[in-house]
Structures are given as structure tokens and as C-alpha cells.
């Protein structure tokens, strides 16, 4: 008996060893130099798998637009998608192990410490300026026609490091997609008007919570919640400037008349915090935003528990309109009736993501050709509209998406259905078409109205995408990592009234050298203004 058992154990051990080794070896075998030696027209491409694509496909190579691209250019693209949720980890591991793909699509400004300048210094990606006139005529032409966009995508030295994902050319419709939304039927039931000022908001939320707008006889209503970025309420305010913008400040860095400022250091920040505290104390804010569970919040909106929230135009508002919820958008709140909002959500036309060519790429001309295709006439059509006759038709010279996209028989949302054919619903190396915004993002009249309302902001205090030097970014990372942890913690404490001492908060921020960080931002902003 004993012997048999021992034998069993040894064989088990052997199997275990085989497993361990077999899982190590393939990673040696598939090292880039071996894989590409066979064919020069195979390119590897690292890009996150968008959930809208993931509902139908598991690789971008299955998207019709990319199949067309591969056929036309005679290139084979091998997409490497990091697991959903583990994108940053996977990217950092790829960089640290230097097992780079040929092309990497990434937000080099925010998600590479030190930004694109550092990425080039680290020899991760290459500078493209010399190659662009020769191998990327379409991008070249596009940038010459749109100097304002060129200013957004270059570094301070004028280096181009990637093929930018652009939100078309019309900031009025393309850059506005996140803001306050409210239940119109609740307002009607309680005889309230759409809130405009901060005071209006307070009255509306108070009525939502104390009366019974959902009519279930229970006092279960919650006034205000956060959908996108529920995982960290501070980011939701950073991102949209909802409420805080009424005082003309942002919660993070911004500028007034050329001087860079940091929200918490401004005197108005106290008033913003006091308002938040009042809302929280009187139970107007959904307590679930503290446990950071977006699913619970979304379910509560569906179940008529939550009356207003900040969320996305298509992902959230479109989702609820699909469910026949009576949702409308409201303008960003102001202090005095009739004021024009100073700050709200608005991104720049450059979505901060770029497809860059890495130092591991053996065939730069082909990679350039592949990425340049998105800015050509043919690529523009394929990436934005998909396949003619299937995902879109042309009538009187105008493009219309087909019913398969807009009223998908399989129950996919328009953006999900389009993701099978085009890349328009995801940012990528091309400029998005206006038709996409008008027909997909603004399918419902409420969404069209939302873009108009949210677009009514000045937003001249928002900082453009800046780039920092190696030294600056190192110091900035040191300071901001310390600050961000503390700020995250204190923001929630201030909101929930666990701490009321804004002065002590500011004092600690100063001890953490926030002033130095502001100086670094200021210097980078001065350089940005001098960009050509």
C-alpha cells in the first residue's frame, strides 16, 4: 500500500513539474525575433479590448474594418489584448520585460509615468517626425490642415510620437459626453423645475428625498449619485467639475489668466466642501458611492431609487433611455441664476490615446502605413462607418447607419453593433466622423439636448495636455503620489463631514510640497503656449 501511494505521489509531482515548466517555456519560444523572422508583414499590436467589441469578438482582427485593412495593405495584424481590468499591470509588465509589440496603443500622457517624452527616452517608442512625410502622407496632410490639433499632439520640442485618436473636428458635439442627469418624471410629479443654480439643486434633491417621487410609499429615494468613476467620487468631480465649477474652480489643476492653480488651495474650495457636506448630512447623496459599487448604483437607478447622477452620454444615459426611463440632462450648475457656467466636462479633440511604434518594430515603413490608413479617405470610411451595404448606406451623398446598427435584431446597443464593423465607438488612430456622434451617440432627442446643455460652458480655465521633462516628471510623481493618496482620503472625509478642517488639509498639502507641483505645471504650461 505504502509503495503504491508513494508512486502516486511521485507521479503527481512529475505532472506538476511538467506543468510548471510548460508554462514557462512558451514565453521563451515566442520571443519577438523568432516570431517575425518568417514574414516581414506580420505586425503585433497591443491595444485594450473594448467591452463593446468583447460582446461579439475576442480580437480586433475580427472587426470588419481591420479585415479590410489587412487585405488592402497585405499585412497581418496580430492583436495582443490585455485582460479587461488588468490593462495597466499588463502594460507595465510588457514594458519592464521589454517584450514589446510592434505597435502599442496607449494613453502615453497620463498612463506612462513621465509621459511620451520619457517613453521615447526609455527607448520604448520611437520619434516619428522623420518618417511621417515619407510613410504617412495622410496624417501629414491632416495635421497641416488642422494646426490646432497638431499643437495638441506634439511634445514641447515638436516631436510626434504616435498616431492620435481624434474626436473629429467639431468640439461642440465630440468633446462633451459626461454630465449631470436627472429624472424628468420625478421633477414633474413634484412640480419642480429643472435645477439651474446650486440652491435649485439643493431644493430639488431635498424634495426628491423627503417626498415620494417614485410613489412606492417608502422613503427610499436617494437624491444624487455618481455613475462613471463611482470607484472614486473625487475623480468624478475632477473629471466633470460638476458643482465645484459653479465657484469657477476645479478640484485639481487649472489655470486663471495664465496662472496655474490647484483647487483645494483656493478659498472657494471651502464653500464647495460646505455644500457637499450639507448634501451629505441631509442624506441627499447616495451612500453607496462610498462602497464604490457601480453595479449596485446602476441597479438602483433602474429600480427608481436614485433621482439624479453624473454619468456618460451613451453608456449611462443611452442605457436608461433604452429602458424607457424619463431621463434628461441639466446644465452644469451656477451660483446665480442666468450665469453662464465657467467649467464643465469637456475634453480636447485629441483623446490622449495614441498608437505608437515601438523600438522592437523591425518594419517601420509597414507599421507607419498601417497606422496612416485611418486618416486616409478609405480608412476613415472603414473605421467610422464599417462596410457599405452592411453597416451603412449612402443616400444623396450622405452616410446613414443601417438598421442592423441602430435597431440591432440581436438586442445589441448601437455602439456594440457598430463595434463589429468599425472602430468609431472606440477611440483609435483616426478621426471620428460627425455622423457617428449624430446617429449613434445622440440617437435619442434627450441626448442631443444633453450635448447642447453640457456644451454651454466656457471651460477656458481647463489645462491642455501638457508634457513634462524627465526630471520634472520624477519630482511630480514623488509629490503627486503622496498628495493623491491623502487627497482621496480627505475628500471623502470632508464630504461625509468626518473632517471639517479645510485649513489643516491645505496645510498638509503644502507640507507635501504641492507648491512645487504647481510650479512644475506652470513651467509646462508656459512651454505649451510657446508650441508651434
Amino acid at each position: 500500500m505504502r509503495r503504491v501511494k508513494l508512486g502516486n505521489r511521485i507521479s503527481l509531482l512529475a505532472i506538476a513539474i511538467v506543468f510548471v515548466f510548460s508554462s514557462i517555456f512558451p514565453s521563451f519560444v515566442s520571443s519577438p525575433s523568432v516570431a517575425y523572422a518568417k514574414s516581414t508583414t506580420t505586425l503585433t499590436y497591443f491595444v485594450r479590448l473594448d467591452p463593446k467589441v468583447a460582446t461579439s469578438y475576442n480580437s480586433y482582427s475580427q472587426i470588419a474594418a481591420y479585415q479590410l485593412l489587412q487585405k488592402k495593405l497585405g499585412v497581418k495584424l496580430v492583436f495582443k489584448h490585455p485582460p479587461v481590468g488588468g490593462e495597466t499591470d499588463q502594460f507595465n509588465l510588457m514594458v519592464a520585460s521589454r517584450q514589446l509589440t510592434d505597435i502599442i496603443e496607449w494613453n502615453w500622457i497620463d498612463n506612462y509615468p513621465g509621459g511620451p517624452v520619457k517613453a521615447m527616452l526609455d527607448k520604448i517608442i520611437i520619434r516619428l517626425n522623420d518618417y511621417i512625410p515619407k510613410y504617412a502622407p495622410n496624417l501629414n496632410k491632416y495635421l497641416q490642415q488642422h494646426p490646432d490639433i497638431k499643437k495638441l499632439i506634439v511634445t514641447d520640442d515638436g516631436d510626434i510620437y504616435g498616431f492620435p485618436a481624434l474626436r473629429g473636428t467639431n468640439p461642440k458635439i465630440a468633446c462633451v459626453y459626461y454630465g449631470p442627469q436627472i429624472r424628468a418624471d420625478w421633477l414633474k410629479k413634484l412640480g419642480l423645475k429643472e435645477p439651474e443654480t446650486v440652491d435649485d439643486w439643493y431644493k430639488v434633491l431635498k424634495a426628491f428625498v423627503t417626498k415620494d417621487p417614485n410613489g412606492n410609499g417608502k422613503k427610499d429615494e436617494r437624491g444624487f449619485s455618481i455613475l462613471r468613476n463611482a470607484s472614486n467620487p473625487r475623480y468624478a468631480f475632477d473629471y466633470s467639475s460638476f458643482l465645484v465649477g459653479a465657484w469657477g474652480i476645479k478640484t485639481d489643476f487649472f489655470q486663471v489668466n495664465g496662472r496655474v492653480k490647484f483647487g483645494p488651495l483656493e478659498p472657494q474650495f471651502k464653500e464647495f466642501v460646505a455644500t457637499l457636506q450639507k448634501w451629505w448630512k441631509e442624506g441627499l447623496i447616495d451612500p453607496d458611492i462610498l462602497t464604490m459599487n457601480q453595479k449596485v448604483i446602476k441597479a438602483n437607478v433602474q429600480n427608481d431609487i436614485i433621482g439624479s447622477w453624473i454619468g456618460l452620454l451613451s453608456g449611462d444615459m443611452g442605457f436608461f433611455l433604452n429602458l424607457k426611463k424619463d431621463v434628461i440632462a441639466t446644465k452644469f450648475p451656477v451660483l446665480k441664476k442666468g450665469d453662464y457656467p465657467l467649467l464643465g466636462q469637456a475634453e480636447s479633440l485629441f483623446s490622449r490615446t495614441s498608437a505608437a511604434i515601438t523600438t522592437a518594430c523591425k518594419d517601420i515603413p509597414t507599421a507607419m502605413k498601417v497606422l496612416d490608413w485611418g486618416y486616409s479617405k478609405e480608412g476613415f470610411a472603414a473605421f467610422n462607418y464599417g462596410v457599405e451595404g452592411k453597416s451603412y448606406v449612402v443616400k444623396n451623398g450622405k452616410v446613414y447607419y443601417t438598421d442592423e446598427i441602430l435597431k440591432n435584431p440581436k438586442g445589441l446597443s448601437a455602439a456594440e453593433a457598430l463595434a463589429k464593423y468599425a472602430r468609431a465607438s472606440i477611440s483609435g488612430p483616426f478621426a471620428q466622423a460627425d455622423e457617428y456622434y449624430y446617429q449613434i451617440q445622440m440617437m435619442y432627442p434627450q441626448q442631443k439636448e444633453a450635448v447642447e446643455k453640457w456644451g454651454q460652458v466656457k471651460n477656458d480655465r481647463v489645462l491642455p495636455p501638457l508634457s513634462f521633462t524627465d526630471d520634472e516628471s520624477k519630482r511630480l510623481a514623488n509629490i503627486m503620489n503622496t498628495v493623491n493618496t491623502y487627497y482621496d482620503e480627505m475628500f471623502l472625509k470632508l464630504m461625509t463631514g468626518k473632517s471639517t478642517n479645510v485649513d489643516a488639509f491645505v496645510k498638509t498639502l503644502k507640507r507635501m510640497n504641492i507648491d512645487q507641483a504647481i510650479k512644475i505645471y506652470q513651467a509646462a504650461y508656459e512651454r505649451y503656449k510657446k508650441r508651434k
Partner: protein
Amino acid sequence: MEKSLSKPYTPNRWQELKKDLIRNKNLYLMVLPIVAYYFIFHYIPMYGLQIAFKDFTPAKGIWGSQWVGLEKFREFFVYDSYYVWRIIRNTILINVYDLIFGFPAPIIFALLLNEIKNSIYKRTLQTVSYMPHFISTVVIVGMIMDFFSRDGLINQILKSIGLVSEPISFMTEPGWFRPLYVGSGIWQNLGWGSIVYLAAISNIDPQLYEAALIDGAGRFKQALYVTIPGILPTIVIMFLLRVGHMMNVGFEKVYLMYNPLTYETADVISTYVYRKGLLEMDYSYGAAVGLFNSVINFLLVVFSNKIAKKLTETSLW
């Protein structure tokens, strides 16, 4: 063997080894994979430790990066001084609580199980108590979140028996983090941890119990004077092994359970290093703090081993 011991150094040493290798080749073959495992996965990667003293950039690689001496340690203790003591305190406190409440739990459980004579009942109980050990951390934390949320099971129960009027938000109160962390850990590992003690108990000579019985010892006295001294060496060894992990807290569970509101009591060294080292790509910083952590752990084991040797004559070496 006797011979070689009496003469500590002989030119024949290699021959002795060769002879021994041939004689016990099966044993050596069996231990080889384990040695290879430690060599490949624990010793070879150690050369990477040097990045703790370098400003590591992937472009230059481990060898090519510039030496910066103790700069990264200074960064940890001086620049991040606002957090350093907090995360060290949290790390140690969570472990101390775990040691005080978590360590004795499986021992007590094993002693209690040992008193159960009905074997079917005993086995069922044992199997049930093992179960949570096999649930993954992600699921465990999901369960904790559900049970302890504002409208979760625990709040419903507390409300229905009238203990609280307003639901307690367990997950966002810094004061609740440690009890929840340690408590769920006990629940998860109680049964599994008791196995080793049950094994030790079954090794105790039954004659000792008979002798105790003749001397008039009841069941409680038997446990006190026979069972506990009988498993004491096991307890000491387990304790020493536990102390070796003093400065490590399971990163996964803390990371999944905490949020900015509970950083005050929940942020530990490993989570802080994750945020700074991996997310901010400051690899050298992560390595430096990891090294610091390991050195402390090492010292703790050596120190407690010495004390254990003095007090109980049982020790790791």
C-alpha cells in the same frame, strides 16, 4: 558517517559524497525538483534585488541602470514620511491582532474537536470547517462586502433584534477594518489550520491519558496536562513560521477590501508599494521597500527562534 564526523576534514570528502550520492540516489532524485524549484524561482531572481539600489529604467536593463545607493530607502522614509509610519503601524497591528486572535483559534478548535467522540459528527464538522479555505480571496471579499454592506445581512439582523437603529457602514468605517479582516481570516482558516494540530494530538501516547485518568484527571485536566504539553512543540514551530510573515499581509485581501475612507487603518506596506511601485512604475522603490520588509522579517524569525529555544527547547534550528 561516523568516521567523517570524527575527522571533520578529510581529503576523502568528495568520495564520501559520491558514495552517498550513489547509495541514496533515489532520495536525491526525489529532492532534486524541490532544490531546482528554489534555485530557479527564489535564488536566481535575487540578482534583481540590486535594483533597490539603482534607478531602474527598463531601457537600460538591470545591469545598465545607474547606482543611486540608499536613495530609494530615503525616499521611503523621508519623502513619504507622512505615510511610512502609518503603513508600518497598520501592517504590524493587523498581524498582531491576527496573532492574538487568529493564531490560537485553530488550536482551540482542534482541542474541542478532539473531545468529540461521535466520529460521524466529528468528521462532518471537520469537513464543513475546511470548506472556506478553498474559496478564493476575491469571492471571500465579495461575500464580506455583501454581508456587511449597509443593507446587507448583518445590518438586517442587527436591526431586527433592535441593536442598532441606523445601519452601520462597516466597509467605510476605519474602525471596522481590522476586526473584519482578522475575523474573516479566522473563519476562513480555522478548520484547515487545525489539521496539523489534530495530527499532533493523534501522535500523543494513549498511555499518558490512561495514567492521567488513574491519577484522577477529568477531561479538562487531561487536555490541560497531557494534550497541550503534547502538542506544544508543534505550536512553537507554527508560531515561529507565523512570525516570519509578520511584515507581510496578504496584499490581495487588503487591496480588495479597502477604500480611501479606510486607508487610515487599512493601508499596508504591500498596498502602498503596489500603488507606487507598479502603478507608478517606480520599480526600484518597490524593490527597496520589499527588501526592507524581508530584512525585518528575517530578523524577527532569528529573534523569536532564539527566545523559543531558551524558553521551550523547541526551535527551527
